[in-house]
């Protein structure tokens, strides 16, 4: 035994009575134990015991879904810490921000992590959505998981948007004012929706408490549940999409209704798509360590990036919210600036029709685009039309967002980017 001391200590612990009661399998040494480790652990059993080499390649998914998940976990952790200090009251919320910055141990860095992780999560969830589109991974039998993914994308925006108000500074107040005004443009339901969101006609204490409850309980709980279903469906729908996916995979999923004129053993009920179906055994490797190690490594990398941003760049905090003194221009959060730019041309078309159509198309996409060609390959030639349309929409969204973020100055008129902000206060 020439193993290093930490490893020997670990092995001693795992083999001890206490260690066995906790870990059951211990550090796996054989292929049997590797499978057992995955199956017997609560955290690991969400994943298959074996995965295809294709799924492990960095280029397959770029890890975008996992990164989103890790950011979500970081947000839950840092968010819980922030909840110990935050008070959702218009009198105290801003002071809590100041206290986090100036007196709470690690308060500033935790808030920074939460803020940067939130922005990154919006970005990575969007990138993940793009990846799924460009690899055609939303097609049968994964249509429903695409729907859950779309819901998670909207929930991510909702989480970020509700969190945006909580610091109760000028940035928060006016971004939410602008954002909810956009919601108010919807015909018939718009004004009511806005009233429901804000608990009134303007952003105030009622809006703050609603946004807080949505931000810390409702949306995270729903998102957490949907994330679990999302991951579970990945397994049940045959693992990650891959180019050599057998055609009978789809049938197997869809023939999961069994004749009722006989009795079944459990093994027969559990048929359908496992990640192994239709796959050459040589293509597969054990999840431990090939998948688990990669996941841990990626997690470390995400934590490192978020911490790096949090240590060196502070989250913004402007003056305390002042309902009678709007900044000019008042801007929505960055991911809604494309929308705000559209609204500046036409409230109805930009605020209602375009976003409504986009969401409708996202939801209906897997049921409209039903061909199975090109699944599991990036930018498949067979999908050139769909990919081009999607890329154009994406490019338009990016251009609009960049214009809204950088090129719009006072009164939403054109300006050169990175102008110094106008001096505070208009008329004396």
């Amino acid at each position, binding site marked *: 035994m020439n193993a290093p001391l930490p490893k020997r200590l670990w092995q001693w612990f795992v083999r001890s009575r206490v260690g066995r009661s906790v870990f059951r399998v211990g550090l796996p*040494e054989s292929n049997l134990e590797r499978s057992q480790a995955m199956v017997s652990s609560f955290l690991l059993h969400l994943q298959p015991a074996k995965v295809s080499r294709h799924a492990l390649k960095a280029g397959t998914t770029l890890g975008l879904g996992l990164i989103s998940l890790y950011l979500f976990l970081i947000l839950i952790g840092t968010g819980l810490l922030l909840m110990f200090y935050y008070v959702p009251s218009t*009198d105290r919320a801003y*002071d809590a921000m*100041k*206290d986090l*910055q*100036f*007196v709470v*141990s*690690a308060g*500033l*860095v935790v808030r920074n992590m939460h803020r940067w992780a939130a922005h990154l999560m919006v970005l990575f969830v969007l990138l993940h959505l793009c990846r799924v589109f460009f690899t055609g991974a939303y097609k049968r039998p994964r249509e429903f998981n695409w729907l859950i993914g779309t819901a998670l994308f909207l929930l991510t925006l909702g989480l970020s948007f509700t969190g945006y108000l909580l610091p109760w*500074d*000028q940035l928060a107040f006016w971004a939410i004012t602008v954002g909810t005004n956009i919601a108010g443009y919807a015909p018939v339901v718009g004004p009511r929706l806005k009233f429901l969101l804000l608990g009134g006609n303007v952003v105030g204490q009622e809006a703050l408490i609603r946004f807080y409850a949505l931000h810390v309980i409702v949306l995270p709980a729903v998102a957490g549940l949907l994330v679990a279903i999302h991951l579970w469906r990945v397994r049940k729908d045959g693992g990650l999409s891959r180019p050599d996916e057998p055609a009978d995979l789809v049938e197997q999923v869809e023939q999961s209704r069994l004749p009722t004129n006989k009795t079944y053993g459990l093994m027969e009920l559990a048929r359908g798509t496992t990640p192994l179906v239709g796959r050459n055994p040589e293509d597969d490797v054990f999840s431990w*360590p*090939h998948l688990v*190690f*990669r996941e*841990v*490594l990626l997690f*470390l*990398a995400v*934590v*490192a990036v978020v*911490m*790096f941003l*949090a*240590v060196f760049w502070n989250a913004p*905090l*402007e*003056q305390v919210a002042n309902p009678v003194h709007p900044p000019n221009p008042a801007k929505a959060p960055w991911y809604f600036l494309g929308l705000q730019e559209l609204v500046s041309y036409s409230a109805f078309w930009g605020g209602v029709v375009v976003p409504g159509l986009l969401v409708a198309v996202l939801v209906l996409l897997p049921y409209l685009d039903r061909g199975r060609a090109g699944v599991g390959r990036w930018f498949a030639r067979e999908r050139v039309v769909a990919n081009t349309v999607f890329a154009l929409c994406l490019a338009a969204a990016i251009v609009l967002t960049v214009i809204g973020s950088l090129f719009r100055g006072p009164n939403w008129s054109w300006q050169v980017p990175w102008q110094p902000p106008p001096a*505070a*206060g208009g*008329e*004396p």
Partner: protein
Amino acid sequence: MDGSMRKFYGGFTALGLLVGVLVIVAYYRDQHREWMIYQRRYLQEEVRRAATPPQRVLAERTPIQIRQILLPELGRVDRCTTCHLAVEDPSYGGYPQPLAYHPLHDQHPFDRFGCTICHRGQGRATTVAAAHGHVPHWDAPMLPLKYTEASCGQCHQAADNPAAPALARGEQVFEASGCRGCHKLGGVGGVVGPDLDKVGARRSPEWLKAHFLAPATVTPGSGMPPQKFSAPDLEAITLFMLSQTGETVPGFYASMKVIPSAAVGRRLFQQKGCIGCHSLNGQGGKIGPALDDVGLRRSPEWMVAHFRDPQAVSPGTVMPRFGFTEGEARALTDFLLHLRDQQVALSLPSLMGPVERGREVFRTYGCIGCHGPDGKGGVPNPNAKTAEQVPALTYVADGYTKAELAKRILGGQRDITPLDPKRPPPPLYMPAWGGIIKEAEVDDLVAYLFSLKPKGEDLGF
């Protein structure tokens, strides 16, 4: 485990170390905050100065920690004393900041008032730049020391405070220059320019000074006439404007507002309508005794007790209990003791004739700001048909009856006839004073305006 996994160990190590280093950096920054440097310096100084071993031990054992003054009534938390530790220790007199002693705080103890209510800045902050408010997104930077006096005016009437002479002068300049003709302050004044109730919280001293001398340079398009203040007057009115923060102080602080003085007493005497029952100089009510020589009959202590609760010292008296605070009672007593000085008594508006009262009205509502001293005119109003000036009022008696003039004042004139219709309209106009100037005051004002016409010119036409 197959060898291909060994490459991960490098990754784990590198990323683990990176995360570890970031945690250490974050922790180090957290544990080495700017304020700790100042606190250590103070404690070193305390150790150095310790005369006896127990003092030394005490100094050495003082923990490094945030010090703060919680002011829930004021909605403030002032952590200034985290660095300025010796503000209450006179033995630190003359020390350089941040360890200097703060003199003259007996009237405003730190544990009740904190620091930022007077000095401004950001009380919750614990870095020099942020605490002094010289950072983006903080609108109340520390007042330069020479303007700290402005803060007295947040609670005390400017004129009442003998310790703030420049502030009192600023108020005089404000009233005498007729600023109220166009600007409202405390709900009194015209509507041509913006309200000034919160101007002190919004504007810096530099901005204010630039604005007084040449308004259009800092507010493009402003129609405000440039003011010709002397240097001390400019400083004084800047100070007075800075004192107008619109902040109201609650409870205990409000009860401490009145600094007793004869002037405050005079104002109270006027406001509460004492003259309705009592007489001065033979004028006033007959229900209560005449007060001309009350100072000879009563002791100051008796008067204070009487004001606070008349029944307590004069059982059966019909004088109502006004609910004066201790300070107000003292102020009234001061005033009554000064009554032997005839000027004091005669300056009461209720003892004046209509013309004198009208002159006060003319002054109070800032008519002078546009119509000039004694209504002599001369204030520029670009592009007005009246020689590009606000018209003088010297001869209004010739053009109007008293009723017409009163109507003219109450109704105002929004549109001033331009000299050249192509140029921008004249910026100054006559606001409607109805609802602002009281009815009785209008009659006095008209009487005063009619008196402006030089004597002996009646036959000149």
